[in-house]
């Protein structure tokens, strides 16, 4: 089994300009991963599947991960001219102050692939891909034409995270129903108050019952009023 670095150089030799980044994993599992450039991902995936040494014919697991926008506070040294009264005379003095500055690190959606080889019995090789942002540029290439096992798992990620897989033969929601609006696995998802609400023919019946109930209450109140 090749190490992640060797696989990276093998990919770069086979697909020029692939732009593979090695992402180290500091935990004891030491499962390092390779981040692919979405533009070359399909070519790289075909190479990984068909290469005689790697023969990664089994795509086991496809995972979506949501990385929301992160507000990062940094302390920045700023030099400013301040007017100060020194010895009774007002002077312009330069002063260096540390100032907290906030900037927003843009978030993204990430998809993680765990590859194994059934022919060579080795693995895992972990691939990752990131979308540009979380709102309008959420397209990633689909691996379903290469490994069929991605079919349902990519549909699930489309459903729960909102990643659009271009080239997927049948991209529909998998677990939530058609017509559901949001993506429940995103970190900023808020439950609707009544997400099982569906307009049914019963609504008109219920409305009539409510009107009828209001009318009977009026009658009852009039009745009690008369008794008093």
């Amino acid at each position, binding site marked *: 089994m090749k190490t992640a670095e060797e696989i990276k150089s093998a990919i770069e030799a086979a697909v020029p300009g692939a732009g593979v980044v090695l992402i180290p994993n500091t935990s004891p599992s030491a*499962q390092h991963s390779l981040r692919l450039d979405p533009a070359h991902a399909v070519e790289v995936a075909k190479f990984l599947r068909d290469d005689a040494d790697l023969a990664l014919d089994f795509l086991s697991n496809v995972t979506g991960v949501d990385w929301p926008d992160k507000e990062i506070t940094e302390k920045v040294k700023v030099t400013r001219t301040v007017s100060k009264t020194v010895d009774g005379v007002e002077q312009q003095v330069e002063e260096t102050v540390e100032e907290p500055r906030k900037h927003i690190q843009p978030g993204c959606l990430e998809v993680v692939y765990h590859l194994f080889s059934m022919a060579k019995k080795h693995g895992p090789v972990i691939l990752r891909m990131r979308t540009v942002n979380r709102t309008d540029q959420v397209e990633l290439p689909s691996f379903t034409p290469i490994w*069929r*096992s991605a079919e349902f798992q990519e549909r699930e990620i489309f459903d729960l995270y909102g990643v659009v897989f271009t080239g997927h033969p049948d991209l529909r929601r998998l677990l939530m129903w058609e017509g559901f609006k949001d993506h429940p696995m995103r970190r900023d998802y808020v439950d609707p108050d009544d997400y099982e609400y569906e307009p049914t023919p019963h609504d008109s019946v219920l409305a009539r019952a409510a009107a009828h109930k209001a009318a009977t209450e009026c009658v009852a109140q009039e009745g009690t009023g008369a008794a008093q």
Partner: protein
Amino acid sequence: MTTPATSSAFLREKNEEGWNRPPIMEPDGEAELLEVAMGPHHPSTHGVFRMDVALDGERVIRLKPVFGYLHRNHEKIAEGASYLASMPYTDRLDYFCSLTNNWAYALAVEKLTGQEVPERAEYIRVILAELTRIQNHASAIGFLIQEMGASGTPLMYAFKEREKILDLFEALTGSRMMCNYMRFGGCRVDISAAWLDAARKVVAGLPDFIDEFENLLSGNEILMARCQGVGILRPELAVNAGITGPMLRGSGVNYDIRKVDHYGIYDRFKFRVPLGDHGDVYDRYMVRVLEMRESIIILNQALKEVPGGPIMDPKAKIRGFRPKPGEAYGRIEAPKGELGFYLISDGSPNPYRYRVRPPSLINLTVLEDMCLGTNVADVVLIFGSVDIVLGEVDR
């Protein structure tokens, strides 16, 4: 059997474009298609699952599975709970095999933190996992026979044996199905000598049960006529579609994670991996029967060799459990296939990302490929031979 007109569509070459997609079938002549929704409340679907089937007479032209009726977003719930709090919830994924679910999750967390598991706990895990495998396969075959129309009685033969194994689970863990037994770095309670004796007695009775089961079924004319040559899955497609477990081995691909990864202490046991030849329903049935026999061999070795010692890693932390930032993917050979857990830690008490790789869902990828061109009655049978639990499919 597939009709000659349709079988050519299944023999597409591997280098052909779209070879791993189900073929698009046309009805014969000008027949009108009948669209049937099988499920979600259908006795053959093992729960709430729907297949939208298009039929030309009795022949299946199109089949689309519909999921989500039992979806409760287990992964989201786990992201809001501590690591240990998800352990009881893993019981509810595949509620037939709660102990293997526990093990897969514990294994992933142990990979994330680098915890060691004491030897005695490893033996207990193997014993419980193999008992789970036997009772799962026995009831899977029982349900398969039921789907063939033998209502009730054969299933009860399987359940009779399953009861004995569930009694063992109850004596050890306090629960028959929702065992919640494994912990990160070991197990929850120790086994007693009396429990081991009871387990040995149950295991000693298992070969007789399997012989009896096989005498009734394996050579049965009706079972052979219904199962042989039905629902054929080619090995290339099985590998490409990520099929695992008895279904993959029924197609003749030698891939058992117990042999490949040697997780736990599986490298200490001598056992063989049964393989099918044709990839049909009968081979999947036979692989399950033979796997039960191999499990008995593992159990006999494990029950003989159980060492003494602690059952928990003494360094394991119960309170304030916070793995260092990082990620890990742990997988085991569950009775239904590869069950994996993928965890990302950000250093907090809750996992940042918690993902279950469900074998039941991914094994259904090729359901349409296996069912096209067959009769409706065979769809029920093929679906039963996949062996799924909806708690795991929909999560």
